């Protein structure tokens, strides 16, 4: 079982994949989301989104700017205005 992760910008769907954990830079602090997280919604400050493909893997970082993250039954959806790299 894994967490379904989607990263969407106005221009395109950047990522849609199953990962182990995602660490999101929320406005009130970073938070990590694992599979089965309670429904949650937060705005995002500019920063790095860390994606852990598996439990011990080195995180992949994506710089995002402005937007919000939504965690629901279906997984985590990050809506960002700008994505770098």
């Amino acid at each position, binding site marked *: 079982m894994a967490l379904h992760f989607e990263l*969407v910008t106005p221009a395109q769907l950047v990522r849609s994949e199953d990962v182990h954990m995602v660490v999101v830079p929320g406005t009130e602090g970073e938070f990590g989301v694992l599979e089965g997280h309670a429904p949650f919604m937060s705005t995002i400050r500019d920063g790095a989104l860390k994606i852990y493909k598996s439990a011990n893997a080195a995180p992949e970082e994506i710089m995002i700017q402005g937007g919000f993250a939504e965690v629901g*039954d279906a997984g985590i959806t990050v809506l960002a205005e700008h994505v770098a790299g």
Partner: protein
Amino acid sequence: MASLKELKGRINSVKSTQKITKAKQMVAAAKLRKAQAAAEAGRPYAERLAAVMASLATKVSGDSAPRLLAGTGSDERHLLVVVNTDKGLCGGLNANLVKAAKVKARELIAAGKSVEFYLVGKKGRAPIRRDYAKEITGGFDTSVVRNPGFEEAENIAEELVSMFEAGKFDVAHLIYPIFRSALVQDPTAQQLIPVPAPKSATADSGAVVEYEPGEEEILEALLPRYVKTQIFGALLEIAASEQGASMTAMDNATRNAGELIQKLTIQYNRSRQAAITTELVEIIAGAEAL
């Protein structure tokens, strides 16, 4: 009767026009594919945002709702945001948009409201200025960039939101074409500000969603973003519509030019034959006279 030389000149000029329209048609066809792909790529974001908005709007209502959602409380001053193309050669697209904008304006004026215009794109300026020169309050020039993208949408949205917050208007409508196919682009008017309350979302699964910071803060951050997304969507639609309309218009133009060339060629051949016949008659008459 036009002389042979004149006819030849006209045929050549129509031929070079045909070459231009043909080239423009092919360029539009290639660009259309790209514009359509871009419009499709932008859809997931808009859908997700709308879904989140709907679920939030049902939770935050009443007096605590931000002004972008609740409005100013009156609907006297309307702002029409008309999105046009920057380039011509796209058939009746811009004319239809301007017509739709003017119909909407007349409707609002007839209902006793005041109307102002905010123009995006070059091609709407002149025809709207003809009827509503004083009502144009601002505009955004998209002709400086090749493909208006999210950055432009952001700038437009920011300007509109600040105008709204400064109390310059009560209601904003967005007028843009919806791209249905290369043949059909429907001009549509849509309320932009205040953000129309989304249709109540299908009842949540009952799960309690936690919000960080609060629901209101999120909604406040979300609303300008929603406006941006709407405008970005309109920019994508206008790009696809422009290329589609241009392709159709140029296809027609190329065909018309072909017909014209045929007609002129027939005329040219007839007058050439007439000239030869006249010459022969003259020679024979001269020979007989000897």
